[in-house]
């Protein structure tokens, strides 16, 4: 399953550094907090990164550069153009490659002295324990709730630290879970939010530097755990507000009644985390709304024919600025109070970026009594693919 970059570290711990390594790590070696002893600890350390995306980029780069002897990279995704804005491990020529493999190439170029295992696989309840067992520290750089609970539970079952970081738009969180004396992810978040109550796409996006900062904090915590130096984030949740440029911290307590790490554990094996989080696979909430649709080609031919169609764009104003179909803009969230702007006697075609928000808009308007309303299937993305490639996709 894994593609490995040599050299393989042997079963025996390393007890010395080569002259090349001594020169390479000299700025560590001259610090008493690291020194030869610390650098050998780094060389003998085995760290598994879950995700090689935004958080995984600085994590991989700094841990490889620091000389962590074995790095595992778990990612099933391929590099896409929209990743390059923040996933600084990758270059433009990596677009289309498997992330774990592209990251392995980049990191082994950065430091050929370390062993890097690329696991091109999705982390699941079936493979997590097997993947984790050979590593000392697990670093969670994933982007969804089911995997976060899975990483947590597998770490607790195996007794391994879980260096946690997460981001949302311009806000980040970091801590260390899974230490015997400290709390676990379930102590902080006993239940995941239901899919309907998570922020919508209108609130998506992330400032590219943010995962760089939070991932770097995770890398620092990982190195501190390996060195056994400093004060770890165990028991503290670090909150970072990039816009206000403020760091705050909250106390995290171990919940004695935690079903995972508490005195009486009730979860003794990995479960179905998609079911636990109320989501199936990659399916987004709201995508099951069934509404009447029109395809981009049908819309184009009806517009060309001169049919009287009212185009309703339910995206956000900043998305309208990227590209638009000259529609009337009412963001989905404002629709209920701006419904009077619409004429129910005219035929309306609603659209958004991908067709999901506009499906909700059509559903809402039908319930409000609109009868002549259609959803543009696939949204602007499909319009760009099927009708007008000059409209940019984002």
């Amino acid at each position, binding site marked *: 399953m894994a593609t490995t970059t040599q050299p393989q570290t042997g079963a025996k711990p390393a007890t010395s550094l080569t002259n090349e390594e001594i020169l390479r790590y000299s700025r560590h070696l001259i610090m008493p907090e690291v020194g030869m002893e610390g650098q050998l600890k780094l060389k003998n350390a085995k760290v598994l990164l879950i*995700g090689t995306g935004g958080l995984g980029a600085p994590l991989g780069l700094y841990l490889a550069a620091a000389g962590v002897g074995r790095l595992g990279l778990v990612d099933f995704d391929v590099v896409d153009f929209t990743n390059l804005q923040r996933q600084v491990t990758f270059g433009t020529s990596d677009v289309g490659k498997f992330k774990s493999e592209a990251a392995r190439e980049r990191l082994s170029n950065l430091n050929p002295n370390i062993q890097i295992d690329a696991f091109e696989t999705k982390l699941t309840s079936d493979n997590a324990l097997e993947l984790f067992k050979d590593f000392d520290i697990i670093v969670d750089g994933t982007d969804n709730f089911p995997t976060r609970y899975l990483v947590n539970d597998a770490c607790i079952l195996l007794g391994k630290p879980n260096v946690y970081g997460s981001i949302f738009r311009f806000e980040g969180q970091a801590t260390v879970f899974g230490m015997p004396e400290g709390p676990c992810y379930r102590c902080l978040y006993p239940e995941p939010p239901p899919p309907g109550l998570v922020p919508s796409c209108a609130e998506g996006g992330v400032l590219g530097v943010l995962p760089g900062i939070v991932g770097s904090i995770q890398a620092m915590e990982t190195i501190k755990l390996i060195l056994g130096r400093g004060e770890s984030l165990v028991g503290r949740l670090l909150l970072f507000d990039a816009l206000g440029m403020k760091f705050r911290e909250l106390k995290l307590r171990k919940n004695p009644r935690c079903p995972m790490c508490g005195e009486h554990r009730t979860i003794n094996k990995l479960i179905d985390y998609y079911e636990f989080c109320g989501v199936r696979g990659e399916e987004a909430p709201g995508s099951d709304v069934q509404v009447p649709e029109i395809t981009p080609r049908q819309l184009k031919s009806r517009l060309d024919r001169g049919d009287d169609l009212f185009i309703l764009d339910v995206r956000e104003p900043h998305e309208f600025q990227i590209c638009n179909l000259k529609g009337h803009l009412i963001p989905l969230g404002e629709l209920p109070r701006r419904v009077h702007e619409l004429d129910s006697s005219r035929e309306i075609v609603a659209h958004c970026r991908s067709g999901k928000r506009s499906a909700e808009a059509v559903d809402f308007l039908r319930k409000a009594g609109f009868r002549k309303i259609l959803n543009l299937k696939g949204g602007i993305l499909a319009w760009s693919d099927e009708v007008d490639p000059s409209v940019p996709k984002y």
Partner: protein
Amino acid sequence: MSVKVMIPTPLRVYAGKRDSAEFSAATVGEALSGLTSQFAELRKHLYTEDGKLRAFVNVYLNDEDIRYLAKENTPTKDGDTISIIPSIAGGSAETPIDF
């Protein structure tokens, strides 16, 4: 007594895009009720239909989790900060939920 409530990014859309709001309140519960009266849309994100704080909503008074204090009855004093800490899962934003 003035208490500041910090509104996390994911919930700002339901709070007129504000990042914080101040209320005169003697307990954490009073401050949160001030918040949800001012921003009604926030209520369903913080409370269940029978009026209990949702299990995935973490509320802190200064740096302490109110679960380990007196929960919503925890008394507040002038200048205290209440933080609502949301679960965020993002690592990279490549799959914005719902997009």
